[in-house]
């Protein structure tokens, strides 16, 4: 089920009212309801993969129980106990990563394997499978893994409440495209009764409205132009390709941060607090700052569970650089089974390392210039991210930096106008977000005293969503 669909418009009020008025007799009942509606939400896309998420949830929960049982057994010595716990945690991690790897990377590895051998003149005959990628698998798998690892590291007590755990993994607002929540934040909220806080709920609705605006008005309209430009890049001028790249930067931002806003806002309606996932990344002053603001939940996951265990920055320079490259490569790989994503991760990793080696940007550079330069580097990376192949990305960039970069950008037919209208709404969004850059989300107008201004802006956004929203299209991050 998409957030931007009629089905969700009907689903949400029914679930909301049932949650607070019918199923609020006990925490367990309410959690059971959450699991039920979350599975309904997920199953609306494809019911076959409900078993997969249930499987992941069950074995992750079981791993926690197993680790606890071993720790409580006083018979074994400490070393043996630790080894057994490691086996259980490791086993669950490997199992989940194998599942993820199969669904996401099987064909990619087979094809890459065959290509590598063909370079050496050896022809291999293999078969690829038509494997459907379950929506949200990367997100809920990482979420479940975080539980196992936190239990193993004794950061979290394992839960015996299987219903609460299933609710944690499958909580529908953040199930298919994040934020990737930690058990230490989200699971614990399912242990205790939720309280309806009116102001939070109002805030949540505001955040959802902002999310819908970014997704439906900005991202979906940018997508029309971006698809045209990237699909026909050989026929367009450098300036048009630049415009296409910039629009994609805002398409992916509007799409992904919009989804996160809708997810966080929806969760607030149910008395659940999710972590902020985007913090105005295009206002970043450098690449390091960008990665503290973009897809925060994934980046902190890699930092906590990969970077720090590898030694983080508390090792020699060479190992520090290695650790940075590893997490960026993994981040790229996480996004999908294509060399473009790996290339994108590597690109950002190299930028990150360069900035570190230059000991950051300590010059007295104007803020706007820093933001513009950072945005330019990030946008270059997005070209690689969006392209179908690495060679296409290089061809795109080469064509972009040609003499036609100085021409007036022009796409085909009505897309010229869609580009203009999209740029207008992007400018509006940036103004609002700049004004509220110290708030959790762009449309947090709690500080605006004038009720007329607040409600006028809400009406403008609502009417824009209705009249200027494009037809529903999938969220980009559903493919991850």
């Amino acid at each position: 089920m998409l957030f931007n669909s009629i089905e969700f418009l009907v689903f949400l009020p029914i679930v909301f009212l049932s949650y607070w008025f019918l199923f609020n007799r006990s925490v367990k009942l309410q959690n059971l309801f959450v699991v039920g509606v979350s599975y309904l939400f997920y199953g609306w896309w494809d019911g076959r993969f409900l078993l997969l998420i249930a499987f992941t949830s069950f074995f992750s929960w079981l791993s926690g129980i197993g680790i606890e049982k071993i720790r409580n057994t006083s018979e074994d010595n400490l070393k043996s106990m630790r080894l057994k716990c490691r086996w259980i945690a490791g086993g669950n991690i490997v199992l989940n990563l194998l599942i993820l790897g199969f669904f996401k990377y099987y064909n990619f590895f087979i094809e890459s394997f065959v290509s590598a051998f063909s370079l050496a003149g050896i022809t291999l005959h293999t078969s690829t499978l038509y494997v459907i990628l379950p929506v949200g698998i990367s997100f809920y798998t990482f979420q479940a893994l975080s539980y196992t690892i936190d239990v193993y590291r004794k950061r979290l007590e394992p839960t015996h409440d299987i219903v609460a755990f299933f609710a944690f993994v499958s909580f529908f607002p953040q199930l298919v495209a994040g934020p990737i929540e930690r058990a230490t934040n989200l699971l614990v909220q399912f242990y205790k009764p939720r309280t309806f806080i009116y102001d939070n709920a109002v805030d949540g609705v505001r955040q959802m409205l902002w999310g819908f605006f970014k997704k439906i008005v900005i991202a979906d309209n940018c997508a029309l132009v971006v698809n045209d430009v990237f699909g026909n890049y050989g026929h367009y001028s450098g300036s048009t390709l630049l415009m296409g790249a910039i629009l994609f930067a805002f398409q992916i931002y509007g799409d992904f941060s919009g989804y996160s806003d809708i997810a966080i806002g929806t969760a607030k309606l149910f008395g659940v607090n999710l972590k902020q996932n985007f913090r105005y990344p295009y206002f970043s002053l450098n690449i390091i700052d960008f990665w503290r603001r973009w897809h925060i939940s994934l980046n902190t996951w890699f930092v906590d569970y990969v970077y720090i265990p590898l030694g983080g920055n508390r090792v020699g320079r060479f190992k520090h650089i290695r650790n940075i490259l590893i997490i960026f490569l993994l981040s790229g790989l996480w996004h999908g089974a294509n060399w473009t994503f790996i290339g994108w991760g590597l690109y950002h990793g190299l930028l990150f390392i360069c900035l570190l080696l230059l000991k950051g940007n300590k010059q007295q550079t104007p803020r706007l210039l820093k933001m513009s330069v950072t945005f330019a580097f990030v946008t270059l990376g997005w070209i690689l991210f969006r392209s179908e192949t690495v060679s296409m990305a290089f061809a795109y960039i080469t064509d972009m930096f040609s003499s036609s970069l100085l021409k007036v950008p022009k796409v085909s037919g009505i897309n010229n106008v869609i580009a203009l209208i999209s740029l207008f709404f992007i400018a509006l969004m940036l103004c609002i977000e700049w004004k509220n850059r110290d708030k959790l989300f762009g449309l947090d107008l709690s500080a605006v005293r004038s009720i007329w201004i607040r409600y006028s802006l809400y009406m403008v956004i609502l009417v824009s969503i209705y009249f200027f929203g494009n037809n529903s299209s999938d969220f980009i991050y559903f493919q991850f």
Partner: protein
Amino acid sequence: MKPTRKQFNNIICFIVFILGLIYILNFVTPYLYRWLPNDYIRTHLIIETLADTAQTPDVVIFGNSRGMSGINGYMLEEKMKGNPTVYSLTSTGQQVSESALYYTSLPSSVKVVLQCVDIDQLSKPIDMDTPNRVALHMYGYEMDALTEKIVPSLSEKLDISPFYYNYEARNCLFTGLSIVLRNLLDDDVIQDATAKELRYPTSKTSDRNDITYQRDVDEQNLNNKFVDYEIIPEWKQLLEDSYLYFQKRDIMYCLIIMPYNPDIKSSTFQEKQNALELVKETFQNIPMIDCFSLLEASDFYDAIHPNSKGAKKITERVILQLP
């Protein structure tokens, strides 16, 4: 702790407000749709023209945008015997099935109906794009019983709740603004051609758009339209029923096989020939003017639309070969 009574009332009020707002916006949409320019305004022109008893065309042309740019009504008026009044009732996306919706509304003055046909359409099930259906609804089209017999498959597709049509038309503000801006920015557009022109509603001033031509051709080359070509029985039935209907009205019904750009090489010559032969064989009783291979690449504005040179060639052939 669940919401208090007051909070619950506020929540209900909010839900009612949202539903009310959607209802109001939905209600207002048709008025905006009819007031703002849009790419389907020709549907309004066609319906209005057919309803106006003062309009007495002798020859009418039906078809999609290829018919709009491909047949010059002025030239037909000038060169056809008797200098008939020619109306081009072509419109964007108008397939034969949509044209058939207008047949029974044709005035008694009509003697000849020229129906432009893209033969690749005949291998796909009869359908109508949503924007075309929306336009028909918005401009007040109503299907009569006789039309329902000619195009039964469209009857169900058109019989949908007005709420749905209004919802689908909600982008009218966007497209209206787009068209206004496009008319300002694009100097290749003939303004008002779509909305008002009844003889030769081509909307382009130039004969070729170099920026889009190759790109459009590449796009067309991705799709082989004539591989394993077969005519869907529904189309056969529709065209035969239409022919019989016009026979009863003593109106000449003639199909014009619209040209195919030779730069589109996704189909082989043999595949195209086979398709064309099948069409001629299937509709051998219906008068037909074959323009399929008439034009050269230079006669096209983009991959599929004839330019003024192409329109001249097509129109001349029509004048020459019309029975």
